[in-house]
């Protein structure tokens, strides 16, 4: 099936084209069938390709399919080529698998919305772009996917375009991502300048095979520059400090979009890119340290903001930012497989959490405020149980998926000599458990804080929504077992990814005995349990503690609730000056003064010159006749005087 690799992105593209061009005339069930069929078909091809890949020997699992030459100009050649190796295989399975499930969920969630066909067309287009991104065999095609997912993200955040906040959020996401993309494209340019090629294999082989030309960089070198530029792109797409601000606002989009794009797949593109470029990053200690530091800071900061937010989707958004931070920590300490492992398990449980939140919002008729929920357990049992599982998984409770992947990251940080990173990650794990169970308790337990009218309408979602929840719930439980840590058995997931990371530099790090690792795993569970207990105590046992605590630590609560004032600081430091400079300098001086002045000046000058000549054209035939006569005489005179 690997010969049909091109089908994987093409099927969603066809689905997007059919629904986008002709969907207006189709009934909703036809639209849903086309969109879900495209996603499902793509998933099946991806699955078959994956099994074909498994049949090969581990060192043969690297299939480069070249389809055609896309750009050829002098020395520069860019080909349309797909690369199927363990890394991209994991990515296409996550993207198409979770994508398919979310497509099915969307049928139920979006059934009452206008522009049903538009929604599904964009969703399929997103799948296409994302698959191009992860399958691409060179940096340029990857950039096409990179921009494509950004476009789809923008379109879907602004799906409710009649709401001003949604339009603003879409623009914010697009502009912030543009900043990151500048870094990414500069990195790609630099790669081309240095290597004369953009193909992954060619670039990475050159680095690995010429250690004298590309030594391990402890200081600033060319690989550091490339790595840092690429990482700027990753901070934009994967919502890391300082460019994370767009993701919480992106929650303006429909909930399935938040689940697919802003939790499970697109935002992990940065992690994927860093791991894909592991041969570059692993040879530059500065780049790795930057990735690690940004990752851990983002993880901690977003988790603290998540503690006090009251919008159910915003809590999850900050949680996503925080978990993405974990993935970058993994990459930053050199444990690239652990990052991809967490990417995969996170896709399961975070998509589940978002879909569950969507189911809650659906049941509550659009209510998103946690403070107006409560006691929903009785009304929406399936949503409750699946979200409960997902919350346990993200908190890192043994033996759910999140435990294995998160613990692997924390263990890697410790065992590779970054105790501070471990400590902050450890604290973040506790915070994660706390805010996640705060969400669960406020939503599903305790007193009902909603109005009687809302309660009257409370209902469990239709099967098209609950079945995806159950599927993702099962994945959240068993997803971690493919990467069991060394103290239980051998880690098959890491062994599978091994060939993709073969060209990376793997420094020696001290080996610890399994009992030490087991001890740290125990610590992780304890801190998670502590977080859950605290949430239980504050929000269930004595519900008034929360308000009292907030009143006691008013300053901190306010700081967290207002998200460290980052949006305000950006507004004051960047947005406002840019707006002012644009208004005063670019608009009023450059545009109105210079450009309009030049255009109007040209017109005025011509008018001035014309005022001398225009009297000739006075409309009097006799005057014209005189001029013709004088002209004829002048010509005759000229001929008789000078030509004879």
């Amino acid at each position, binding site marked *: 099936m690997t010969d049909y690799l091109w089908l994987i992105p093409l099927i969603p593209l066809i689905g997007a084209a059919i629904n986008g061009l002709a969907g207006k005339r189709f009934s909703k069930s036809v639209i849903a069938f086309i969109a879900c069929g495209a996603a499902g078909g793509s998933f099946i091809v991806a699955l078959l390709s994956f099994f074909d890949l498994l049949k090969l020997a581990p060192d043969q699992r690297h299939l480069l399919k070249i389809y055609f030459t896309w750009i050829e100009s002098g020395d520069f050649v860019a080909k349309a080529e797909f690369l199927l190796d363990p890394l991209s295989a994991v990515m296409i399975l996550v993207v198409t698998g979770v994508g398919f499930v979310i497509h099915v969920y969307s049928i139920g969630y979006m059934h009452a919305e206008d522009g049903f066909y538009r929604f599904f067309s964009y969703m399929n287009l997103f799948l296409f772009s994302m698959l191009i991104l992860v399958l691409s065999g060179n940096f340029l095609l990857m950039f096409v996917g990179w921009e494509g997912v950004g476009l789809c993200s923008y379109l879907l955040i602004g799906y409710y375009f009649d709401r001003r906040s949604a339009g603003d959020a879409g623009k914010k996401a697009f502009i912030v991502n543009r900043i990151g993309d500048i870094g990414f494209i500069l990195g790609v340019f630099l790669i081309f300048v240095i290597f004369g090629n953009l193909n992954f294999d060619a670039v990475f082989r050159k680095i690995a095979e010429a250690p004298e030309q590309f030594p391990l960089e402890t200081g600033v070198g060319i690989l550091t520059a490339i790595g840092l530029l690429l990482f700027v792109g990753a901070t934009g797409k994967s919502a890391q400090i300082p460019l994370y601000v767009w993701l919480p606002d992106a929650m303006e989009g429909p909930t399935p979009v938040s689940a697919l794009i802003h939790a499970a797949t697109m935002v992990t593109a940065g992690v994927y890119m860093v791991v894909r470029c592991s041969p570059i990053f692993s040879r530059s200690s500065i780049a790795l340290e930057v990735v690690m530091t940004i990752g851990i800071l983002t993880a901690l900061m977003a988790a603290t903001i998540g503690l006090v937010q009251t919008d159910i989707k915003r809590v999850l958004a900050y949680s996503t930012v925080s978990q993405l931070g974990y993935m970058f920590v993994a990459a930053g300490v050199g444990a690239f497989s652990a990052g991809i492992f967490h990417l995969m398990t996170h896709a399961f449980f975070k998509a589940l959490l978002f879909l569950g939140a969507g189911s809650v919002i659906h049941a509550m008729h659009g209510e998103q405020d946690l403070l107006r929920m409560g006691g929903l357990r009785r009304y929406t049992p399936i949503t409750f149980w699946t979200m409960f599982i997902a919350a346990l998984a993200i908190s890192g409770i043994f033996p759910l998926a999140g435990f294995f992947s998160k613990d692997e990251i924390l263990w890697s940080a410790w065992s590779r000599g970054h105790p501070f990173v471990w400590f902050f990650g450890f604290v973040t794990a506790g915070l994660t458990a706390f805010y996640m169970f705060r969400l669960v308790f406020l939503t599903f337990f305790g007193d009902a804080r909603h109005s009687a009218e809302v309660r009257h309408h409370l209902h469990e979602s239709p099967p098209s929504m609950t079945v995806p929840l159950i599927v993702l719930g099962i994945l959240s439980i068993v997803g971690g077992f493919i990467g069991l840590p060394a103290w239980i058995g051998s880690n098959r997931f890491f062994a599978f990814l091994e060939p993709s990371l073969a060209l990376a530099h793997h420094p020696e790090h001290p080996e610890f005995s399994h009992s030490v690792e087991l001890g740290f795993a125990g610590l992780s569970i304890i801190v998670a349990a502590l977080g859950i207990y605290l949430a239980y105590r504050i929000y269930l046992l004595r519900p008034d503690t929360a308000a009292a605590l907030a009143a006691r630590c008013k300053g901190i609560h306010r700081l967290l609730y207002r998200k460290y004032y980052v949006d305000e600081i950006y507004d004051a430091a960047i947005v406002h000056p840019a707006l002012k400079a644009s208004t005063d300098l670019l608009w009023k001086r450059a545009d109105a003064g210079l450009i309009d002045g030049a255009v109007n000046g040209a017109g005025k000058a011509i008018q001035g010159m014309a005022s001398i000549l225009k009297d000739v*054209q006075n*409309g009097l035939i*006799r005057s014209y006749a005189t001029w013709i006569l004088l002209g004829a005489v002048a010509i005759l005179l000229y001929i008789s005087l000078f030509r004879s």
Partner: protein
Amino acid sequence: MELIHYLILSMLLFLVGAVGFIIKKNIISVFLCLELMLNAVNLSFIAFSRHLNQVHGQIFVFFVMVVAAAEAAVGLAITIVLYRNRNTLNVDDADTMKW
């Protein structure tokens, strides 16, 4: 009678036509002056044709006469329309085609 005599007559007729075209205000007079200029040219064509013993000039005279006939038809039509619309035959009143 030499060629020069015909040419002098032709020139004088042309000048009368041209000056009349410029100084006359009545559109019918202007029109007549125009015809006068055309026929002045016709005269010199004929004179040259005879002088050079070639038939070309005479053929051209027929061309000019055909054009003059067509032009007379169109011109008189314009004159009638002008009179109906403006109630005048003064060419200076038909001066709206300007900047």
